[in-house]
Structure formats: C-alpha cells, structure tokens
C-alpha cells in the first residue's frame, strides 16, 4: 500500500531521532542507566517478594532509605570533591550511640541531644577535613584510620554503657514522633532527609559552594588557578559528611531505640556501592544528589530483598561487591565513550525529496549559464574576511561584517579606504538600516545587535521564548542569520538552525530538518517571540513592498515563501519559489520592483539523491570523517532576480567561481549590485544594465532623507 519512499518519509517525519543526540548532550543523561537498572530491579523483585508493594513494607523502606540515603549523600559529597570517606559507618555508629546515651541514659532534651550529636559529627568531619584538606594526607588512609579509631571508641563506650542503654527509657513524645511519626502518610524521617536532599541538590547544581566543590573534584589544579580555596573546600566536604552521618545516626536511634555491637559495620562498603551504582564518579567532579538517591534505593532494595529471600549476610556482601565492580566498570566505559557516542549520534538527517532541479543548460531557461559576474569589480580584496552581507547607507558608504567580529565601513565614492565601525565579537551576518539610520545586525552565536552611525553597538535581543517540547535549550539564539524591518518598526529575523553553531552551519544541510525559525522582535514592548518555527535553514528575509508581508528563504528545501504578518491574510504563509537549482540565501529589493536572491551553492544530483536516503547520510556522518562528507556545492553560486509571483527574470553567474565562489548576499544601490560571500575575502560590484541610477535601499524603505 505504501511505497518505500513514503514509508521512509513517514518514519522520519514522526520518529524524532534527532532527540537521541540532544538527550545525550544533557547532563542528566548520566542518571538514565542507574534509573533504568532501578526500574528493572523493581520490576523483577516486586512480583517475587510477596510484601514488596504493601504500605508497611514501603514505609519501612522509606525510613531505612532516610538514614541510608543521608549516608550515601555524605559519601557522594566527599567523592564529588575528589576524596573518599571510609569513616561514614563509624561516624554513624557514634551518632547512634551518642543519641541513645543522651536520651536513654542522661535523659537530655531531644533538641540538645540533636545539637550535641551534630556537633560531634562536625568535629569528626573536621578532624578528617583538617588532616586531608590542610595537611594533605591521603584521604583513603586517613579515613581508614578514623574508621578504626571511632569504631574502637564506639566499642569501648558501648560496652561500658550497654546495660544502661537497655534499661534506660526515653520519655519524649518528640523522640517517638521522630522515630515513628508520619506526616500525610510519609515517615517524618524520610521527609527530613528529602528536605536535606533538595537543599543539597540546589547547593550542588545551582549555587557557588556546590560548583566550587565540583570544580575542586574535577580538576584540583584548575580550581586552584581559578582562585578557589581548594583546602577549605575539601575540608568542608568532610565536615558536611560528618554532619550528615550524624543526622542519619540520630534518625536511626530514634527509630530503633537501641544499638548493637555491629551497628554501622560494613556500612561504608554499601554506601560506596550505592554512590558508584548511582553514577557518581570515583575520580571526583561528577555526581549529583539524584545519582546518590538512585544508588541508595538500588542498594537498599537489593539488600532487603536478599534478606527476605533468606540469603546469608556474607553472600549479600558478595552480591554488593559484584555490583560495585560492575558499576565501576560501566562508569569507566561510559565516561570514556559518552563524548564519542554523542559526536557520532548528534547529526540526525531526515527525509527530503526535491523534484529534479531546473536545467541550467537549456538556452530558454532563465537560469541559463553566463559569466556576467566574472568581471565584477572587487572591493577590499584581502582586507576583509567573510562579508556575509553588505549594505549601503544614504551617503553611499558600504558596510560589511567580517569573521573577526567587526563591522567594516568602506567610504564612498571609490571604496578604497575603510575603517572598523564597530567591533562586536561575533561574525556579523544579515544587516538592515532602520529609519533612524541605525544599523541592525544579526550576529552568529550572539543575537540581534544595533550599531549607531557613530559606531556604538548595543544588544537588541539574544533570547526568545523556549518551546516546551525542546530538549536542548532553544531560547538562546545560536545562529541569527538575516533580518529586515517592517514599516511599524518590528524586526523579523531568521535563525538558521538551533542545533549547530556558526562554523558548522553547512552540517545542518546534512540534516535538512526544520531546525530554523523566524523570530520577531517588537521594539514597542521589547518582546521577542518565535513566529514561524520548524523552518529548514531559515535564511534571507526581506520586507515586501505591501508593508504587511515578508519573503523568507529556506535554504535546504530550495524554496522562498511569503509570510503575512499583518493585513487581511495575517498569519498565512504562501510559497513563492520552489525547486530552485541552488540553495537560496539573502533576499533583497531590486530597483525595478522585483527582488534579488543569492544562491549560496548549487544542488548536485548525488546530494539530492542522498537527501531521500536519511539512513545513508546518518551512517556517513558516523563512519566518514567530516572533511569527506558530502556537502552542498557551495563553491559555485549565482544571483537571481524574481518577481513577487515567483517568476525568475534573470540570473547572474560566475562559473568556476573565480571572483565569487560563493555568494550569500547582494544589495542594489544606485545602479550597482554589491555582492558578499560568507567565506570570501572580497566584496564584488556589478553594474546592472538599465537599472535606476538613483534608487537606494534606505530610500525605498524609509523615504528620502529628512
């Protein structure tokens, strides 16, 4: 029923495979694998264990999770800073003992006990922190020693008070509430831990102390060079570890009301397993609260299930050890291959079927080949690089952008001298004059800028509304390309693609997906809104003479369309030119009421065929080096003139591209046509036969000078 081609078309229309690369480029993708494992573990173990999904079981799991989660979080913070803390189990045990002593033996108020326990934990942490952070001892050995010392202290104190601990009884409603209370059905301890986790998530992902911690863990020397107090940051990580372990111990004591000689033994191994299983890097610098929680849940569910199955404790430890090894291995492979996977899967071509292009060899064709541009006069040869667009002001001065981030002004009448009007920093692309003779410029990678006649540049906008379906943040302007101004002052500008940077613009041709858009900046309220999304490399824009519509080019579909932003047809889009023989770039007004368009490159049959085979292009992007990829032929370009009904009137060529291998823009001014090219080192000037010698762009838009 369906042909192969229509199946391919439908498959690429509805299966968004470009999202794979975008998802891979997000930071949270590291959590995907642990999350998947967690789902699998729950799906497998849930039905096997009879009571897994019952309320009491879940509530008990929640309380355990609260305590264990805090310890995992503590360890994750230390790992993130590039260290390791083996003493978490001992600190936890000491906190349990301290809480019980305070409550059962000395019968102190709950809050005093809490404060004391936290202070004790902070002190242990400080001990670790000073030794490791300031005295530069090895984290592994130092915390191993702390582990042993604290454990010994625990055993001594525990034996001394063991009878008192058992016989004593805490008579405190608050203590019981902390241990057994629920709020809206949730165990209180879980809520407390959850709150702590959220705070830590914000600190680590959104605040300076967290970023410093990550920076120190990721590259200690770079962090030091960046001015971060590395020693203090490391020390504080251990202090926080001690405090969090103490909170966990306090909650544990409140829940169980007793301690044993083995409390906290082996906890560092399960916590370490959890941290690594969640995807936190052992080497530091990569980790998050979410990862810690995922890991903690995984380990807890696995241990609890093994206990329910009646598996002996020693075997449980073995299983955890195997998990730890597997997680470390996977983590290493993932880190090593993630970038490669991303770079190989980012380019995601889609289906595009263009009809056969018009023949340029046919003598009756308006595209018939000629060498009219071979003899153009050349301006600024070797002085400028990358004049994507050119424009002339009321006084005949010529402006262009360069890839060095300058706006260069050539002085009338002979354009032999020039000056840098403004340095903006990004590569200026499309340009337009507003009615006050300010130059508005689209800057690749930066956005829309304004340059006054005396060279002062200001940002107009660099942000639009984000689409709620976008995976990568598409609110920033990545490749603002061309613009024009409506009579009411609104600025319509195109963004060619949201998936590639300025230098990789041609790679977007391999995708030929609707990655571009037209955006409107309204100076009356300062708002920026996307008006036409999903355009295929939205490129040149020009306001039509009716004052209520624009012409815009979509390069890779080889078409030019008309969009009505006002008037009776407001909001409608009509095709004007389709199936051009090349890829249209900038569009500008001609003096005779028609329009000029530049073709930045020509279509080739081999590429047109590849456009109908997206899987071929995807494999090419994966397997062949970028310098050998098939590209649009941008070594030859031409200029066409067309009327608003879509009739081609004329074409100007430079075969072999000796003067202008690529033409991205042309601007008519007083009987001359000025040519720009994004990878050229010159501007061309072509005498138009029979053109109005007085016509200028600014006068056509804004009337004669005031």
């Amino acid at each position, binding site marked *: 029923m369906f042909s192969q081609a229509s199946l391919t078309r439908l498959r690429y229309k509805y299966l968004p495979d470009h999202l794979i690369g975008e998802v891979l480029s997000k930071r949270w993708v590291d959590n995907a694998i642990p999350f998947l494992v967690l789902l699998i573990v729950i799906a497998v173990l849930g039905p096997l264990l009879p009571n897994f999904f019952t309320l009491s079981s879940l509530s008990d799991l929640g309380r355990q999770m609260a305590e264990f989660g805090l310890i995992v979080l503590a360890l994750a913070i230390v790992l993130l800073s590039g260290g390791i803390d083996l003493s978490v189990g001992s600190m936890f045990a000491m906190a349990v003992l301290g809480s019980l002593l305070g409550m059962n033996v000395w019968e102190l108020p709950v809050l005093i006990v809490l404060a004391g326990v936290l202070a004790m934990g902070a002190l242990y942490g400080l001990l670790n922190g000073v030794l490791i952070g300031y005295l530069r001892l090895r984290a592994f050995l130092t915390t191993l020693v702390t582990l042993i010392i604290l454990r010994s202290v625990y055993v001594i104190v525990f034996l001394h008070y063991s009878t008192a601990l058992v016989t004593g009884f805490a008579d405190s409603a608050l203590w019981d509430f902390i241990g057994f209370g629920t709020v809206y059905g949730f165990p209180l301890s879980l809520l407390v831990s959850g709150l702590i986790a959220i705070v830590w998530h914000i600190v680590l992902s959104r605040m300076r102390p967290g970023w410093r911690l990550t920076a120190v863990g990721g590259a200690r020397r770079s962090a030091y060079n960046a001015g971060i107090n590395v020693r203090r940051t490391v020390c504080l990580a251990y202090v926080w570890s001690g405090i969090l372990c103490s909170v966990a111990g306090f909650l544990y004591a409140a829940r169980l009301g007793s301690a044993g000689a083995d409390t906290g033994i082996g906890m560092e191994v399960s916590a370490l397993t959890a941290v690594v299983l969640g995807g936190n890097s052992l080497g530091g610098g990569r980790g998050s609260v979410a990862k810690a929680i995922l890991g903690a849940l995984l380990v807890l569910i696995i241990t609890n299930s093994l206990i329910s199955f009646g598996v002996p404790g020693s075997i449980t430890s073995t299983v955890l050890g195997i998990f730890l090894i597997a997680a470390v291995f996977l983590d290493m492979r993932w880190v090593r291959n993630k970038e490669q996977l991303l770079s190989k899967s980012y380019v995601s071509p889609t289906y595009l079927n263009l009809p056969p292009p018009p023949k340029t060899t046919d003598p009756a064709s308006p595209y018939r080949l000629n060498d009219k541009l071979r003899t153009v006069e050349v301006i600024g040869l070797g002085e400028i690089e990358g004049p994507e667009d050119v424009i002339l002001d009321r006084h005949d001065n010529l402006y262009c952008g360069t890839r060095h981030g300058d706006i260069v002004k050539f002085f009338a009448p002979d354009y032999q001298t020039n000056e840098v009007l403004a340095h903006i920093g990004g590569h200026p692309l499309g340009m337009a004059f507003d009615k006050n003779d300010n130059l508005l410029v689209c800057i690749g990678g930066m956005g829309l800028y304004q340059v006054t006649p005396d060279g002062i540049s200001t940002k107009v906008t660099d942000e639009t509304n984000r689409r709620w379906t976008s995976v990568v943040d598409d609110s920033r302007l990545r490749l603002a390309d061309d613009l024009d101004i409506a009579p009411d002052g609104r600025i319509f500008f195109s963004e060619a693609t949201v998936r590639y940077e300025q230098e990789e613009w041609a790679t977007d041709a391999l995708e030929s997906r609707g990655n571009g858009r037209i955006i409107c900046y309204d100076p009356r309220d300062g708002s920026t809104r996307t008006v036409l999304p999903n355009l295929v490399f939205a490129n040149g824009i020009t306001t039509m003479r009716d004052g209520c519509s624009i012409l815009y080019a979509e390069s890779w579909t080889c078409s030019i369309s008309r969009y009505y932003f006002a008037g009776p047809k407001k909001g409608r889009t009509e095709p004007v030119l389709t199936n051009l023989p090349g890829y249209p770039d900038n569009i500008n007004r001609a003096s005779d009421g028609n329009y000029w368009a530049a073709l930045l490159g020509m279509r*080739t049959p081999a590429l047109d065929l590849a456009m109908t085979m997206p899987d071929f292009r995807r494999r090419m992007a994966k397997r062949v080096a970028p310098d050998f990829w098939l590209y649009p032929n941008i070594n030859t370009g031409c200029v066409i003139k067309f009327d608003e009904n879509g009739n081609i009137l004329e074409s100007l060529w430079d075969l072999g591209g000796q003067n202008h291998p690529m033409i991205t823009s042309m601007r008519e001014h007083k009987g001359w046509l000025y040519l720009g090219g994004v990878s050229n080192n010159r501007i061309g000037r072509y005498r138009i036969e029979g053109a109005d010698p007085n016509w200028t762009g600014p006068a056509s838009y804004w009337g004669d000078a005031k």
Partner: protein
Amino acid sequence: MRAFLQRSYERFRGIDPPERIVPAMDGPLHPNAMLDEAPVLLEQEGIDNLCVAPAGVFASAASELLSLMPEGEGFRAQPLETFARPITCIASDGAGALAIGQDGEGILIRGGAHDGMALTGTGATRFACPTGCVFVDPHTLIVAIGSDEHVAAEWKRDLMKQCHSGSVWRIDLGKGAEAAVPLAKGLAFPSGLALGRQGELFVSEAWEHRVVGLSASEPSAPVELLIELPAYPGFVAPTSDGAFWLALFAPRNPLVEFVILERRYCERMIDTVDPQFWIAPALSSGKSFLEPIQGGARKKLNVLKPWSPSWSYGLALQCNAQFRPVASVHSRADGNVHGVTSLAEKDGRLMIGACGSGRVVAVPVNAQIGIGVEL
C-alpha cells in the same frame, strides 16, 4: 554464519573492512606538486596511451591514433588514423608492429608479420574491454581484459559495482585469439601490464589497489607485490634500467569506499545519476557545479586547499625492479595534471600523459625524488 555475524557487528559499530580503508599518502607517496611544476610537452584533450616505438612516439585521443612529432622542447600531435572505436591501449613489439585496443571490439594488429589481425575473443570471453597489452615477442601478445561486464569507458560502473571479471590472456598470434591461454581470471579490473627482466608479468589490479605478479607463460595464482595503494593503479611502464613507473589514474576517497559499501545508495546512484556526477573517482573534476563536493573541498577565502579531498588527482609512482615504491610525483586537488593514464620513457625523460587534464609533462626518469627535493 560467523562471518555474517562479524559483518553485522562491524556494520553496527561502523568498523570499516580492511580493504575499504584508504591509506595515507606517506613515505614514498608523500605529496608534492612536481607534476604541476614539470615542463608541459603537449596539450591535447584526452591524450592517452603514450607508446615509444622505433617509428616514433605514438599516442591516442579518443578514437584517433596520433604520432607525436618533436617540436621545440615538446611535441606536436599529428593525427594518423581514426579508428571505429576509442583506443584503449597501444603496445609496440619493438619492431614494426603495433597492437591497438579497441573499446568494445578487441585488439587490432597494425604492421609486422600479423598486420590486420583482429583479436576479438576466445570461447565465451569477448575482448570487449582491452585495457592493456604487451608483446612478449613479435608473435606473442599478452592482453589484459578489464572486465567481462563493461567496456573500458564504463570503468566507473565497473568500480562502483565492484566487478571482479577481469582476465589476462596470452595469445600466440600465429594461432589466433581462439587459442589464447588464460593466465589469470577473476581479477578486479587489470589495467596495466609489464614484463620483468626474468620474463615475469606484472599486472596492476585497479579495484584491488595492488600490483600482482603472474607467470607470463602459464596460468598461475597472483602474487601480491605492491598492496594498499591510496589510488587506483593503471599503466605500468618499465624503464631502460629494469625498474618501473606506475601510473595511478584516480585517487581513492573514504566517501567512495563508503558508497561502495552502501549498496542501496550506490545502485540508485548508478541507475539515476549521470556518471560524471557520481560520488566516484574521475580522471578530471571541478568542471561542473553538478559534481558532488566534500566538506574539505569547500573554498575558504577563494582558495581551494591542495590537500582537499578530490575526485581526481595526478600521481605516478617510481618503483624499483622488485616493485618496491621509491618516490612519486603528484598533482594535488588544486593542480592541473590530473588523471595520469600512460607513461613512456624517452631520452632519459619520463613522459607522463595526464588524460584527465589533457597534457603531457616530463620528469627525469631516474630522478632521486625525495621529500623536499626539487627536480
């Protein structure tokens, strides 16, 4: 089954099979611009099949047999005869006879004892794609048939379809073509023949990117002599001191190798696109904007970089008597001596016929060419 699984895995991971990996031009193949700098002896569109005979220097352009007359430093092309078919190869027996390959037809003998003889095939094999021939003695001719499926002009199709139907034959001219002895079959476009000092036969096998050795008298298994070439080898010219020059008529390109693996795209390209606009090697390129271009070949600031990937290239490789590469002369992407299809030694100079660019240039035949050494 195991091979299938391995292929599937390699395809999934994107691992190229070894024969599809294009080696770097390095060592004796280190690029230079010597072909572009060399003196031009003749400009003639489609110049091909340079052949030095006692009667003078012969060459061809399409179906025209040319005699190259010395004129000043270079040559003047004098048309001798127009044949019915394009000329694909010329060989001299060192006396008065010439063997002339006719595309789609076979081999004609002109002059000598077997004047007027036409070798059109033997048994089921038609000599429709004669790509090279060499006289062992005035009565024995060895011919290379590039392909059973395509004529020589369709070599791109033969490459993109990865045909392995070439063969090499020994023909006793006294008995005629019907009694021809196959020296090797199933070759991937044998496109150049040369005899060694010990009577062994050297054959360049274009689509396998190698030069193999065969027995010149009886069927034998090919022995690999020169492998993993970065371009397609063609014409082989022995020099007077027993060494060899090898013409490599077009460069290999990773995209072409990829397209050869992509059978579906490749078939559709063969069926629907004009061969000169294929993703395929060519004798000359950059003549039409309908030719595909690659990322590295985009002009920047009006300059086409010499190291750009291109569909055509100029390359001749100097080898010693054991067929070890010694040195090479190049014309890179921005050069204009592309598509070298024939070589001939005369008066201590090696004449290099660039069919793609339509010119003959000369380099000293024993030049000690090294990296950075001027001619």
